[in-house]
């Protein structure tokens, strides 16, 4: 599935929810289903510190694609980062760098994108793109 198709699928899923409560419940569920985070990666290097909750993001690059593992100490944030992992993990750097993440706006999470909310969503996306950029230039050099 392309990133585009995946975004459409997420938007469709969220459209079925009646209210914010169901949306949050879904995010909480997504957060719970996120695979356990490797404790050796729970170090400051992989911490994206938002004002309100902590997010860890660990990238690895193999066979031209990036795999992300992530965690958060808050459940809803964990759900949000799980969504990002779902969209970005297993993609090439070019796919990650060239994609407009319009689904965030469409599923009612836009308020979480405001920099003043400081919950790290913006920082998470930025960090994922930075990793993509780094792996891309590394790949081009070798």
């Amino acid at each position, binding site marked *: 599935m392309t990133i585009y198709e995946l975004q459409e699928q997420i938007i469709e899923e969220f459209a079925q929810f009646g209210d*914010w*409560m169901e949306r*949050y*419940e879904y995010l*909480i569920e997504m957060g719970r289903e996120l695979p356990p985070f490797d404790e050796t990666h729970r170090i400051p290097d992989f911490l994206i510190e938002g*004002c*309100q*909750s*902590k997010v860890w993001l660990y990238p690895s690059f193999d066979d031209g694609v990036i795999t992300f593992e992530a965690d958060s*100490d*808050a*459940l*809803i*944030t964990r759900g949000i980062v799980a969504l990002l992992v779902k969209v970005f993990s297993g993609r090439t750097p070019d796919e990650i760098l060239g994609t407009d993440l319009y689904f965030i706006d469409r599923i009612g999470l836009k308020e979480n994108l405001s920099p003043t909310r400081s*919950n790290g969503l913006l920082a998470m996306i930025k960090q994922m793109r930075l990793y993509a950029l780094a792996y891309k230039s590394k790949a081009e050099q070798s």
Partner: protein
Amino acid sequence: MPLAKSIEAIRADFPILATTVHGKPLVYLDNGATTQKPLQVIRTLDELYRTANANVHRGVHRLSDLVSDRYEAARETVRAFINAPKREEVIFTANTTASINAVAFSFGERFVGEGDEIIISGMEHHANIVPWQMLCERKGSKLRVIPFSDEGVLDLDAYRTMINGRTRIVAVTHVSNVLGTVNPVKEIVSEAHRHGIPVLVDGAQSVQHGTVDVTDIGCDFYVFSGHKVYGPNGIGVLYGREKLLNEMPPYQGGGDMVANVTFEKTTYNVLPFKFEAGTANFTGAIGMASALDYLTGLGREAVAEREQALLAQATAGLSAIDGMRIYGTAPHKVSVVSFLPGKIHQYDAGMILDKMGIAVRTGTHCAQPLMERYGISGNIRASIAFYNTEEEIEALVNGVRKATEMLA
């Protein structure tokens, strides 16, 4: 003592309380961060800009005179509100933070040197920590911190042993913004005064919850913000003892604070103007005075009494939730309740409560050392004002219960 108005009439004074959030009626329980403004304050500001706007203390013209008189009348209102001995001892600043920085800088320049000590408490807001740390860095002096118990009560024995010949000032909060504890500032002051040491009391969280009398407390400095006492933001108060203020150098130079300026030498104006450089926030001061008049009109003891009843309801309701931890159980508290249900992250709970229209604060509340003391990354704080209702407290308790179920 009953309030001078019914709760319905009081709520009608605060138009914002009738708004909705995410389609739900607003339940505003973040009064410790800032309070809402009554129509009386809003109208004062509106009327001021329409009829009396001019710069203060300057022109000989009519409008300037008018607004200067009202600015000075506001100073008198503040003086009376905290029962300060003299009008000249009331200095207008931008907010509590600005007031503390002013003292830390000016008092520090004059009285604090290398090896000297400053005492604060472990339950201070960052605003009453960082300015003193900056002073310590400048002067090579040392910060001492009064510890407190799990309940949130300061250890006064430890405080007594901390005072020594190098102590230059004690700076403590009257009320903890997280724990709600009302500290025994009168006792703290008298202990310091026995050793000739001045005391600054941070009144940001106390002045809005009943009567505050700086003469009775005996403190040398008392500071608070207008926006936390139902007034506009951008205005704050620094009360200081005349003798000390006269000995302290100005911390900002500019217009209004000078008597005579030549390129060789400038002499400073008298109190309070010596500490009010530049165009004063006269609209803020006059607006704040109308907020203080409003509170006085309602009855400050009645306000405190109502808030205590709502605090008791909130504490009982929240405590009944499984796994609830309340931070701050001192015998003498204002209407602030900080809590965490079970292992739930404050941010998750705050986001869910927000969708229910309930405004609480989540995080460290600008008191990171306090959170560290309890070994938590933050908590949820409901801070209650007299305009809150029993139904709103019930909505909070139900909301927290619902959030807890969702997140469990």
